[in-house]
């Protein structure tokens, strides 16, 4: 057993959530389903930590690689492995999943078994997406993540859930269709191979790089989302149940950024270089525009949703400046944003469970009735606008340092986005936590219980841990990112002058 685990740690990590689903199907009572889900997410988290401990930051390239024949007809393999970037994403996914289960513990009352299975399904498939070294595998599981999200939204969502769900699916389908086109393009150009390393080694001809990049870019940009492809996000985030919002904002969006890093930069360096100026400006626009939109919101969940658009702008900004600091910053920002925005959605969810209202104007003066909640909400709010000492600050600062090699003006504009973030978060805090209750029941709301504290407290540690000791993540990222940057820059330099 030990050798099975150690030899196939990564596959075990991927398998546990799926085995959890089977376990949930076998048990009869709903309470057991919850415990099954919690147990398998915790085991996954434990395995992810194990993976982290076993990961050797001094070795470049993929580690824990496992390969097996899968569909020989199209020359596709089951091939998984982790490098620094994958590892960070796997850790984030594994961290958020148990919290999602805890957050749905009592707020999901109907169809508990199905809900928990969906959470596990989405967790398992994201694990594959973040570790796949085969593009066909990557694409298939990318598609699979969409299905549970759709059902979560339309079955357990808010009042406008059907519209939001359909919008989500149509957007996602369009995106993945383009992604499929891009992937098939890569497949055809690289002598009919889905193996990413082989594709990178073959090198895609310059004339094909641009159109393939365009297709992949649209696929990833919709998922991320970059403006102007973002309009599915506010609806989906605000209508989804708490766990759904956490998964969406915390991990699902990061698949876009991860895709850029995993596929676009190494395999299509020239395409990346061609499109980079446009993407950088779109990122800046997204940072400022998302911030402005968040400022205009009167709905708590929508506010957090729009703030995600703003923060994901930093991710693409960091990726497309093509240097180590920018890219490490982008990965850091993805991790920190996953933790802090996930926490914001969890916190808003706890509030929603009590009052079934998401409107800011229904709250006020929570500091007296829910002091613990207000402390945690404040912590996550200030983390989310990147106060020094939190992981978000490290991410944003690294991205800005990376951007400074490209353009100081962009640095300044992106910083404007941080001010907007401080503005909408503190204004929200002022209206929700300070002052006097605006509804008669507002003063009577119960403070957080033990389980709810357990849901939020780990993220406080993560947010500050990464902020004060970013070395734990930058250490594993350093070699991977340096290799990636070298690959991308070499690819760009090798391009014939046009």
């Amino acid at each position, binding site marked *: 057993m030990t050798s*099975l685990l150690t030899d196939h740690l990564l*596959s075990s990590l*991927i*398998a546990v959530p*799926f*085995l959890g*689903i*089977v376990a949930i*199907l076998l048990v009869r009572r709903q309470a057991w389903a919850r415990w099954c889900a919690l147990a398998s997410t915790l085991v996954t988290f434990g395995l992810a930590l194990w993976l982290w401990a076993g990961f050797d930051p001094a070795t470049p390239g993929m580690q824990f690689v496992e390969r*097996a024949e*899968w569909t020989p007809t199209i020359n596709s393999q*089951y091939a998984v492995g982790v490098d620094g970037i994958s590892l960070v994403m796997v850790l984030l996914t594994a961290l958020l999943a148990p919290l999602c289960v805890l957050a749905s513990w009592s707020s999901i009352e109907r169809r508990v*078994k*199905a809900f928990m299975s*969906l959470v596990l*399904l989405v967790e398992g498939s994201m694990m594959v997406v973040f570790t796949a070294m085969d593009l066909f595998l990557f694409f298939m599981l990318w598609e699979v993540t969409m299905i549970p999200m759709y*059902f979560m939204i339309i*079955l357990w969502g808010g009042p406008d859930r059907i519209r939001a769900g359909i*919008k989500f699916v149509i957007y996602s389908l369009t995106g993945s269709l383009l992604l499929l086109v891009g992937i098939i393009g890569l497949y055809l150009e690289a002598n009919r191979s889905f193996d990413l390393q082989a594709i990178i080694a073959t090198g895609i001809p310059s004339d094909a790089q641009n159109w393939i990049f365009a297709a992949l870019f649209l696929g990833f940009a919709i998922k991320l989302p970059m403006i102007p492809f973002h*309009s599915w996000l506010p609806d989906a985030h605000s209508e989804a149940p708490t766990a759904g919002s956490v998964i969406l904002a915390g991990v699902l969006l990061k698949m876009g950024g991860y895709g850029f890093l995993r596929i676009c930069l190494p395999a299509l360096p020239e395409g990346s270089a061609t499109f980079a100026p446009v993407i950088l400006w779109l990122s800046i626009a997204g940072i400022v525009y998302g911030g*402005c*939109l968040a*400022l*205009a919101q009167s709905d708590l969940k929508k506010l957090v949703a729009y703030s995600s658009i703003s923060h994901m702008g930093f991710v693409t900004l960091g990726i497309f400046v093509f*240097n*180590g600091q920018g890219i490490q*910053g982008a990965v850091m920002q993805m991790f920190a944003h996953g933790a802090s925005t996930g926490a914001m959605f969890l916190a808003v969810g706890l509030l929603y469970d009590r009052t079934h209202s998401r409107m800011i104007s229904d709250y006020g*003066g929570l*500091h*007296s009735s829910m*002091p613990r909640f207000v402390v945690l909400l404040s912590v996550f709010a200030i983390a989310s606008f990147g*106060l*020094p*000492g939190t992981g978000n600050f*490290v991410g944003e*600062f*690294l991205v*800005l*340092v990376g951007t*400074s*090699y490209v353009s*100081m*003006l962009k*640095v*300044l504009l992106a*910083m404007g986005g*941080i001010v907007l973030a*401080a*503005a909408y978060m*503190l*204004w929200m*805090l*002022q209206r929700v936590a*300070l*002052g*006097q209750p605006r509804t008669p029941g507002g003063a009577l709301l119960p403070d957080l219980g033990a389980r709810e504290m357990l849901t939020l407290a780990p993220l406080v540690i993560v947010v500050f841990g990464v902020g*004060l000791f970013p*070395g734990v993540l*930058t250490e594993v990222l*350093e070699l991977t990112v340096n290799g990636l940057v070298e690959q991308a820059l070499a690819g760009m330099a090798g391009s014939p002058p046009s």
Partner: protein
Amino acid sequence: MSPYLLIPALPLLGALALALGGRRLGERSHRVGILAVAGSFGLSVAALVEVARHGPISIPVYRLLDVGSLTVDVGLYVDQLAVLLLPLVTGVSFVVHVYSSRYMIGDPRYRRFFAVMGLFTFAMAMLVMSSNLLVTYMCWEVMGICSYLLISHWAGRLAAGRAATKAFLVNAVADVGLGFGVVLTFATYGTLDIQEILSKASSMDGQTLGFLGLEIQRNTLIVLCLLSGAIGKSAQVPMHVWLPFAMEAPTPVSALIHAATMVNAGPFLLVRMAPLLLLAPAAMIVIAVIGAITALYGALVSLTQSDIKKLLAYSTISQIGFMVFACGVGAFGAAVFHLLAHGFLKGFLFLSTGDALAATAAHGHGGRSVRGARLRSLALGALALACVPPLVLFTGPYERVWSAQQIPSAGVAFWAVGLATVFLTALYAFRGVVTLFGGSVGRSLRVRPRLSSIAHVPGLAVVAILVAAFLGGLWSLFSDFLGPGLPGGPPADVPSGLTPRLAWPLAAAVAGWGFAYYRHVRPASVPLTQRGWAKTAYVLLLNKLYFDEIHSALAVRPILRLSRWLWRDLDLRLIDRAVHGLATFVTSGAQWLARTAETALIERAPHVLASGLVSSSGWLWRTIDQRGTDEALERVGRLADETGEMLQVIGPRTLRDHLVIVVCWLALGIGLTYWLII
């Protein structure tokens, strides 16, 4: 491990203990805070002694970031400058802690109060000792959030929440400059270590940066960025609006953060980066102008305020403006001296005010109703002293630094601004004291010394020491001590002791007192009943030159309106509708295709095909299906039925079960592949 590491660490540990230590501490929370801060005060004094003997100490702590060429080491660098400020920070913090332990009794958030105060003391001490610009920036922001948390301490008050948000946001705007400066410094020098930057500074002289189509000297731009941060944190015009509002905080907080320590961070940063400043003469002029405007503006507005805390706030603005002005003319030593004197003094004044306010709590915030012979003597001496430190500026011919830039009449401006500020300070200080303590209110409101007044003793002692030491020529000692900490420093031919030039500012101060006394003895008519410019000026100043309204009209409301317009009109109407429109277009396109293409072409083709198909399928059915496949199918059917029955045991056939089955199959498929690999 150096023991001086404990100077910031003790308050931090105290704050953590209070935050996590649970409710058991309750009413005894202050003990943890007082103990921690007392410890760091003791160590600060020890550090002062050691630095005086052996020179600067540097203590590495840990490596925060190591990404490519960017390395950030958290470390402490205790030089002459830091070691002078540390006793101010920890000492005032200690006095304020002791004071608050009485003042805040009965507060429902007693524990939180001391936790945040501890965190603030940590951040400020760390800022003073920081050896890295990024760490400085981080502490800068942490202080900002502590200030936010303490201003909104009485969270039930709507005004407190608004003031806190306003304070943080104004600072956030200003800190964009500072943060930009940090990034730009790294881009220029390739390091963020302060000593390294300062030693490399001259090598970058003349290097320019193309920005927004302009070619700007890099050093000048960096200094302007640092100034932007200082303008926010130290409440300089035009970012000063938050400080008067910050007076919503409990009075001990005003004493510690908004008078004695945090607001001094701006001048401190400028002095810390002094060698860089000296390389950027253009930026120094901007610094001096902003400082001068703030000094005069604060003093003028102070003349019209009737709320004692707001009066003190504007006085703080003015005094810090003067320090910034001093930095701008290159008088760094004078700025630090003024900073220390003002810090101790203002903290002490606020505590006295808090006492007085507490004693007359029933009479609201207005400052016109307090009497107290004991307080009067204290406050008079203190306020009179508020005018003295600026005199130091006139001990050296600092106006020459300006004149060296070939600005005509720079010397005149220097003297005019300096003397006018001293005059106005004397005027409002005297007026404030007289109206506060010499008014004609009934004797029943006399302030009695309370137990918390014991906190005055250290404050009083400090004041006494300062007075004595100043008169005894502390300034020359002081500048000798600080000298090595200030590379660059004043021009070489500056006599550092007392000079006859001091007669001018002293005369200005005496004139201010005299004028105030004259107006007090023979009160003129109320300004509002006067005519012409006097009334206009009074109304303008009473409304603080309408800065709040200007900010609201030019920045806050336009941004909010823009945001709402962007959301409603651009995002929902345009982008979202475009998506829906696209969907509608696709749907109608599909319908059109169905109507035209299908009926015309596709529907007819099947008819042709169908007849052929029917006959061939008839043959297929008869030969293959009935004989071979049917049997196999029947077997599969039976199996399916059995599976169905099995599934029915699990639960009723709802949507969930369909889902579950799909999931099950997926899991099984992937599980199978997984096992195959093994």
